[in-house]
């Protein structure tokens, strides 16, 4: 029989570092941390040594020197005497531009294809399957160069619009020109403009634009109010009043009034000299990148959408149908709210992928951040280390922001569940 003695007092022995659960964790972590720091120190030491022997100590000063190169598409004012930093900012904005446009189009196409893939129409479902498989299984870089090549080869050059019986013609009453240099569309102009608002002295924001945004926002808010009222009436009487014309009017009328007040008119593109002048020029590089990224990503989004809808069991649709709900209502009241939860997380991670893939812009010469900071600037200054680190940092920040949104959404949705 074992006699019970007092438990042995804790006296520290070296063996406890390994065999005592309390210290073991600590030991392992200290060792790991030490190893990690050793590795980091080694890498940094190598780098410093290498750079020193090359005579290129880390120095971000080059960012403030004149860039000396031109960028064809700039969202903020820029010319070749501006600094590399500003060139990078131009690139970053271009990255964000194509990312936002891409996410929007990819969502639209992806959702459409995902739903059409479930269509009862055999042919449509097959075509969508072919589309999805084709795009998913060919590298996105190839799609980007493909898209560029298609644009360049299949659309007419501006010179084809010239002359009496020109081989090409503008669309929509001479307002839109699709050329292989890009698309020229009418631009909004204001006869009585409010001027620009400089922000931090770095760039200007058009006050007209701000005013329009404000009116639009107010209109949408009012429309929301009308909707709440409709909800209230429905709750009270059971009948939902028809309000779409009211809601439309409340958004559109003030907007139209403002536009008239500002002397809104369109500036049409016009063939002058070598090119179309006036209007908004969406460059072929932007369009190719945008379309390729969107359609490539849309294939993945379509799968997520299809999966999301399929995940909502057939039973849900049947139960709703058995209650007498119409197909449209079944979609909006039963299927979509549930499918959204399944779809949104993969959707956002596809947004992330699209944003990262937009770095392939250099393949078509679209001047995104990789093209400016990670391309020409790096090339002309020879500051590889600084440029690549900065580039990674910028992408990392964008990615983390997107992930943060995703996590926020996930936790929010989870709360609703239980």
């Amino acid at each position, binding site marked *: 029989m074992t006699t019970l003695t007092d438990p042995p007092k804790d006296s520290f022995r070296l063996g406890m570092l390994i065999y005592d659960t309390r210290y073991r964790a600590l030991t392992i972590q200290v060792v*790991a941390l030490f190893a990690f720091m050793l590795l980091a120190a080694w890498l940094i030491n190598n780098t410093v040594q290498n750079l020193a022997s090359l005579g290129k100590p880390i120095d971000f000063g080059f960012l403030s020197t004149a860039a000396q190169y031109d960028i064809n598409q700039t969202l903020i004012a820029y010319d070749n005497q501006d600094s590399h930093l500003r060139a990078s900012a131009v690139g970053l904005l271009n990255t964000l531009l194509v990312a936002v446009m891409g996410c929007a189009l990819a969502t639209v196409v992806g959702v459409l294809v995902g739903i059409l893939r479930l269509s009862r129409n055999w042919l*449509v479902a097959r075509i969508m399957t072919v589309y999805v498989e084709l795009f998913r299984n060919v*590298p996105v870089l190839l799609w980007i160069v493909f898209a560029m090549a298609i644009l360049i080869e299949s659309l007419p050059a501006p010179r084809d619009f010239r002359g009496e019986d020109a081989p090409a013609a503008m669309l929509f009453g001479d307002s839109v020109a699709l050329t292989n240099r890009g698309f020229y569309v009418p631009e909004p102009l204001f006869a009585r403009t409010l001027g620009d608002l400089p922000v931090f002295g770095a760039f200007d924001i058009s006050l007209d634009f701000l005013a329009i945004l404000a009116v639009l926002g107010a209109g949408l808010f009012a429309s929301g109010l009308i909707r709440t009222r409709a909800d209230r009436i429905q709750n009270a009487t059971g009948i939902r009043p028809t309000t779409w014309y009211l809601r439309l009017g409340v958004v559109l009328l003030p907007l139209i009034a403002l536009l008239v007040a500002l002397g809104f008119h369109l500036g049409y593109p016009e063939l002058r000299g070598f090119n179309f002048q006036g209007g908004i020029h969406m460059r072929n590089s932007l369009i190719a990148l945008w379309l390729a990224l969107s359609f490539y990503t849309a294939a993945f989004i379509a799968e997520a959408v299809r999966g999301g809808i399929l995940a909502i069991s057939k039973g849900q649709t049947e139960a709703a149908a058995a209650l007498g709900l119409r197909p449209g209502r079944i979609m909006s009241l039963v299927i979509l709210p549930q499918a959204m939860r399944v779809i949104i997380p993969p959707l956002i991670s596809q947004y992330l992928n699209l944003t990262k893939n937009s770095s392939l812009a250099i393949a078509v010469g679209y001047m995104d951040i990789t093209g400016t900071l990670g391309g020409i600037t790096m090339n002309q200054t020879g500051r590889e*280390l600084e440029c690549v680190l900065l580039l990674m940092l910028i992408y*990392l920040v964008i990615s983390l922001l997107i992930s943060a949104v995703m996590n926020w959404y996930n936790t929010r949705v989870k709360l609703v569940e239980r």
Partner: protein
Amino acid sequence: MADLTFVRHEMVPEQAPPATSVGPRGWLRENLFSSPLNAILTLLSLGLIWWVLSHALPWIVLSSWTASSLGECREQIAAAHGEGTTGACWAVIRERYLQLLFGFYPSDLYWRPLLAFGLALLALAPVLFTALPRRLLWLSAAAPFVVPWLLWGGSVWVPVCVALGFGLGLAALRVVSAAAGGLAGVIAAGVVPVLWWLFLAWVAAGLLQAILPFGITPVESRAFGGFMLSITIGLVAITLSLPIGIVLALGRQSNLLIIKAICVGFIEFIRGVPLITLLFVASLLLNYFMPPGTNFDIILRVIIMVTLFASAYMAEVIRGGLAALPRGQYEAADALGLDYWKAQRLIVMPQALKISIPGIVSTFIGVFKDTTLVSIIGLLDPLGFSNSIRANAEWNGVVWELYGFIAALFFVFCFSMSRYSMYLERKLRTENR
């Protein structure tokens, strides 16, 4: 109210359905014209198909296979199909397909990459199919050493000595853990092989080669190119990323704060930046990070970065597999007295990896597609090669034929892989668990 009783004494035989619901007519009605909207969609789809085919087919068919330059191609097509016909110049593919497939790999050694990739496929089989004889697993264990040897060639002793490192590690684990306990054993198992590889393995391999020379023609990695380069990068990266991914996933799951932080940091960093920036690191910076004077060639550097890239994604895939394992499995292992590593090796990993296989395959497809980015840093993968080919005066101006061929190669490869992973997924779902 009528009489409720009813008894059927003669069963109704099965009848054919009404003609409108079966047969080609029924099928058409059901699948293509079930409603006006569907009919419109069907017509639109037919229009689309017609449009695509009518543009692509003539170009593909009215082509030249024999010319030796683009100009000659144009002449041949004009001669055969009339002036003004535009057709494909497949001759460039005929002349260069071997280059697009194998790059600069010596043509008399083409059997080696073919054999190596065949072997890799074979080695995969016993891992994936539990039905195959377990003895084939030896092939899977040997493949990571044999395949690189076949690809890069050189002395047979190099892979042997590398493999020996694992043997040494195992031996160290046995000996040391018997003498000084489990954790010391694990540490020894980690340290000994690394020391061996760093300091002794090359010497040993050199000695052995001197004593017993046996080897095949070495091929520099610079000779790798074309599709073979893509496969090599993809294959090596995935194989290496598997163990790294496992370690990262375990680290991320661990409740040791610092280890977890390091792993999470690494994974999120790699997943947060585009691959192209990592390739910039490979081509521009990696040599800075190494001790002055070290220099390994660009393909190795790319493989390193792509491996790190794949590892982060792999870690997430495996983490999913780990999360899918019920807690009971860990507890049962604990209750039986298995320590952490044994539990991981015997209970957790075999199951988690099996669950993760579809994810691993799709990571592989992703990485494989992404290998095309190496063309941006000047490596001659199929896409890079297409540029070099166009830099020849004869083929300057050829576009679609090359892109089309490359796209078809990738499509065939990735599509079959993805089908295969779907098959695996189905199999895993129905398999008893």
